[in-house]
Every structure is written in C-alpha cells, then in structure tokens.
C-alpha cells in the first residue's frame, strides 16, 4: 500500500492540501509534497484531484497487518436530527460482537446538532462515541459523509464497521468500500465472529431462497450493511459509562458535489409507519377490493396498529408504497403481526418472519403463511374478521 504522486501531471491547483484532514500535504514550490508519516491513506486527495496526479495503491494485507485493526464500529444514522431506530439495533449487535472479540465498541455519529444522541448510544452499549458535528453534515450527502468516515477509518483502523441498510446506508457504505478498497456485504441478517476472529456475514440472496455466509479475509475493516428491524435493540442502561469524543473533520463545499434542494416526506396523514409499530395488520390479495380495507382498518384502530400490505395490493395502489411489507418493501418486526388473505410467499416472509407473534387468517389450509404463524385460522376473512373485531372490542371494553 502506498501513495503515488505524479509531480509532472500535477497542475498545482492546491485543492488537495485543503482536502487533507491530516496535515499531510503542503505547498512545495508551485506543486505539493506529502508527509507520508502523517498520511493515513484515506483517499480524500485522490478523489479531489482533477488530473489524477495522486494514486493510492491498495493491496491485500497479511495477518500481521490484520492484527493491527481493532474494535467494532457502528455508523449511527440520524435523519433531521432524529436518531434512526436501526442505530440502536446496530449498537446492541455491535456490543455482542465486541464482547466476543474482547474489544471496544465505538459508535460514529455524524450530522449537525446531534450530540444529544451520544448518551443514548452509550446507554445501549457503546464504549465510545465519535461525534462529527458541523453544518456541512446537516443534510446527508455521499461526499461529505464519505470523507468523514474514510478519514476516521483510515486513521483509527477498526476491524469491523456496520451500517444500517437504509437508503442512505446503502448509498454510503459502498462508496467508502470502493475508496478504501474494502470488501462489503449488503443487507445482512446475521453477524457472528468465528474461531479465527473473522466476521461471518449472513445474507439472503435470490429473493430469500438461499442464505449465504460471506467473509472478507484480506481486507480490514470488514464492512457490512445490516437490514433494519432484524436485530432487536437492547434495553438502555443509564448507568453505563462511556466516552464522548468530538472530532473535527474539515470538508470544503467544493468537495461536496451534490446539493439537496428540498426534502419531501411521503408519510400519509394518519397512517402509522410499519417499521415502528408494535402491531401490524397486513392485508393481501385476499382482501379483494380496496373498499374492504375498512375491516383491517377497524381492527388496526382498536389495536393501535399500523396498516400494511403485500406487494400486489400496493402495486394496485390500494395502499401507499411506504406500507409494503416484504423483500422489496419494508422489513418489520412488531410484537404482533396479523396477516389477512396473504399467501406467504418467500418474498413476503423475508420482511416479517422475525415478528414476535404471527396470526394468519386464510381460507387455504395449505397457504405457506401458516408455516410461520403462531396462531392460524383457516377460514374466510369476511366472516372471521368481523367476529375478531367484535371480540377484541368486547375484551377491551371490559377492562
């Protein structure tokens, strides 16, 4: 590994000294020179150079080099100042991995005015929180966040870095992986440490028909995005000690090549998010007509539940895309999941099978949904559901 600088190609534009967060580049006549003792090979200068005069060579590393990488990191995403729930899931899982390795767990928090979340992350298991807080990080942009993460990773050498497999997480992690020449596994649903202290990353492939165990033997850190709502967040412990470290990372506006002009929320008024609800009432093609959604809506209201749908009924426009459960929709893990007229194809199961408790009503006794249901009723939703609604009402009223 090393940095190659082609002085003849260099035009002396002086963008790279500004892009360097490690003071490793300085003006040298009308060109620049590098202090390789300070350089951590984060790649920021290579990316900003307009004429490709800087090249970082990355090679497979050997076991002696691998041993230098320590600690588990989690990238904890915020959205408009709010900590995403996947951040707590990552910290809880990260804690487990760090304990197995006998190493520390570091949470990375990037944004603007987000420091207040650091304590929450410590209470959920982080030993240290790195806070990168500046105006330039207020909106998520690939460029600014990549610079922050690569600077931290390259200088501090963690052995594992986990990201939530959200839209932003899946945008960011591969950019970092490519800049640092690292392996990356997408959308993991299982993470373990093996006897060789490697991270075993398990993910579904082929629409959930196959599970694959993936390792990154020659690159460090080992990186994975993790599907939200698969690992459960632990209970917070407000007596847990932890260290909060503010890190200053300079990103100049010229390094951020995309600009967020406007953010539009498509949350439907009065419709609870399926990702955050404790109870979900989910309808499938068996509901037959959008007008019939009144029934599940009544039940949802009684149970303070979110309304969900299988893909066909979302494709038909009966429910907004935000309510689709399954592989190409949202992954959920509520306490109670009620499936109405849903056959239970593998792509649907991929999004809900980790629910605590599953109820299914379907008129086909052989519907695959029954194989994941804790309580199944073989019958017609239009005769059974009104009875269920009446019974729930009766029980709630009697309390």
């Amino acid at each position, binding site marked *: 590994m090393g940095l190659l600088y082609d002085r003849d190609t260099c035009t002396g534009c002086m963008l790279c000294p500004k892009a360097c967060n490690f003071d490793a580049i300085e003006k040298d006549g009308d060109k620049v020179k590098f202090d390789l003792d300070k350089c951590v090979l984060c790649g920021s200068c290579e990316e900003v150079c307009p004429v490709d005069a800087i090249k970082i060579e990355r090679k497979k590393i050997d076991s002696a080099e691998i041993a230098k990488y320590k600690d588990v990191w989690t990238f904890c995403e915020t959205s408009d100042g709010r900590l995403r729930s996947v951040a707590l899931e990552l910290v809880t899982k990260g804690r487990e991995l760090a304990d197995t390795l006998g190493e520390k767990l570091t949470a990375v928090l990037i944004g603007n005015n987000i420091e207040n979340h650091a304590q929450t992350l410590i209470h959920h298991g982080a030993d240290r929180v790195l806070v990168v807080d500046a105006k330039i990080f207020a909106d998520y942009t690939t460029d600014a966040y990549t610079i922050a993460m690569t600077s931290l990773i390259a200088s501090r050498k963690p052995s594992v870095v986990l990201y939530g497999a959200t839209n932003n997480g*899946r945008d960011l992690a*591969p*950019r970092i992986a490519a800049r640092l020449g690292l392996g990356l596994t997408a959308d993991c649903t299982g993470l373990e440490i093996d006897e060789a202290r490697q991270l075993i990353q398990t993910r579904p492939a082929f629409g959930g028909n196959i599970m694959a165990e*993936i390792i990154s033997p020659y690159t460090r850190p080992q990186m994975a995005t993790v599907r939200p709502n698969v690992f459960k967040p632990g209970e917070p412990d407000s007596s847990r000690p932890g260290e909060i470290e503010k890190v200053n990372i300079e990103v100049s506006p010229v390094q951020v*090549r995309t600009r967020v002009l406007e953010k539009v929320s498509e949350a439907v008024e009065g419709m609870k998010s399926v990702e955050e609800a404790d109870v979900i009432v989910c309808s499938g093609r068996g509901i037959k007509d959008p007008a019939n959604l009144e029934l599940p809506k009544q039940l949802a209201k009684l149970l303070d539940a979110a309304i969900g749908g299988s893909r066909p009924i979302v494709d038909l426009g009966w429910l907004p895309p935000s309510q689709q459960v399954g592989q190409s929709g949202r992954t959920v893990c509520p306490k109670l999941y009620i499936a109405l007229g849903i056959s239970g194809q593998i792509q649907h199961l991929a999004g809900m099978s980790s629910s605590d408790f599953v109820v299914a009503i379907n008129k086909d006794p052989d519907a695959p949904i029954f194989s*994941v249901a804790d309580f199944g009723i073989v019958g017609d939703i239009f005769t059974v559901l009104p009875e269920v609604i009446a019974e729930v009402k009766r029980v709630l009223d009697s309390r």
Partner: protein
Amino acid sequence: MNEETGTLIRDGVPSILNPFDELAVEAAIQLKEKHGGEVTIVTMGPPQAKDALLKALAMGGDKAVHLTDRAFAGADTWATALTLAEYIKTMEFDLVICGKQAIDGDTAQVGPELAELLSVPQICYVRKIDISEDGKQVITHRETDEGYEVVRAKLPVLLTATKGLNEPRLPNIMGIMKAKQKPFEEVNIEKLGTDPDRLGLKGSPTQVRKVFPPEKKKGGIKIDAENPAAAAKQLVEFLTKKGAI
C-alpha cells in the same frame, strides 16, 4: 452453484435485462430523445448476457459493449465495479445510469462503487431525472426512507434508477431488426488490459464461505373457522394470554 467457491454458475442460464436496468436504459433513451447524445449499453457477464444487450439496443440504445472473459467470473461487487470502471474510464460520458440493484444478489453496491472508481458523484435511487437548461447539471428526485429529496449535481454524474422512474418501452420489430446491425463490441481481459489478479474471483475482497437454505419456521396452532365466532374468541383469548392485546 459452485460448491467450492460458493459462486454462481451462470453458464447456460438465460440472461434477462433485469427490471431496474430496464428503467436505466429507458431513462437514457428518453434523455437522448430530448437532449441528443448517444446511448452506450455496457455490461459485464457471461456470453449469454448478449441477449440482454440486444434487448437494450432494440429499445433504442446506439451501441453495446460486452465485457466478457473467464477471468471476470466469480466477481463480487467490488471486482465487478472495477471491471466496468476500467472500460468506462476510456469513454467520454455525461451520465452513467445503473439499475438500483440486480435481482439475484440485490446488493445495490455496484453503482456507488463504480461512481467512486470513476471519481464522479453519485445519486442513488432516483425516480425522476431532469437536465438543466444549460445542459450542465442534473436535477433528480432521490428516494429516501421518508419519501424523496430533490438533489442537484454537475455532470458527469452516476445515477441509479428505481421504481417509478418511467415505464420501460417494449422493443418493436423494427427495433429488434435494427439491433443486430448496431455496433457491438466484445471486450476480453487482454483488450481491457487490467491485471487479472485484480478482477473476477481473485480480485474480490469478499468470499462466499457457505450457502444454505433458509431456516424453516414451524407453524403453531391452526384451527378451522367452522364457527367464526368461536374461532375469534379462541384467538383473542390466546392473544390476551400472550400479552399481545
């Protein structure tokens, strides 16, 4: 599946243009129809991937490039992105449009990795693409977990296409006939000129250690709703006992 390497054997498996890539091809053709320019379709894949390229040409692409060689086989997302980048680097382009993800691996990683290796900005999961009047910028609607955001960037840019971007056209007979006459370039490892150790299985930082079928959960109680009211009662009783209600 190759038991030893855990990679897929794609030999003999027909290749289709995957749905997200169709969106990308359609978007490129629409931009060309509106603003001019040329649409080049590039893929890396086994010989039968030619069918997907021909379909994209039939839809209205101008030329196709097929990166194909034994040495590219078994590539993970990083090695795939590198192979594509090595070729695309040699072209002049304003926009690279990828499908959001493939339908087999569905990692959504190749797009962003390719953008990095090409040193261009990326906007992932776009549902709308506009070019500014001066032709120098792209303005997109990018899907987020909450809805979407309007994102602007100077060209060149890499975009990944998601559902809602457009309705891909079906190639017509004329298009299919013309496709066979359009320029079609095959590029192997020699032509690409990249060190084979950096590509394919050898160049992949991730390795598949094992594949296995997903765990089957066993069902619990299952009752018949001959008497719907009784069944409802039983269910609600059960849920109350479990503390679910």
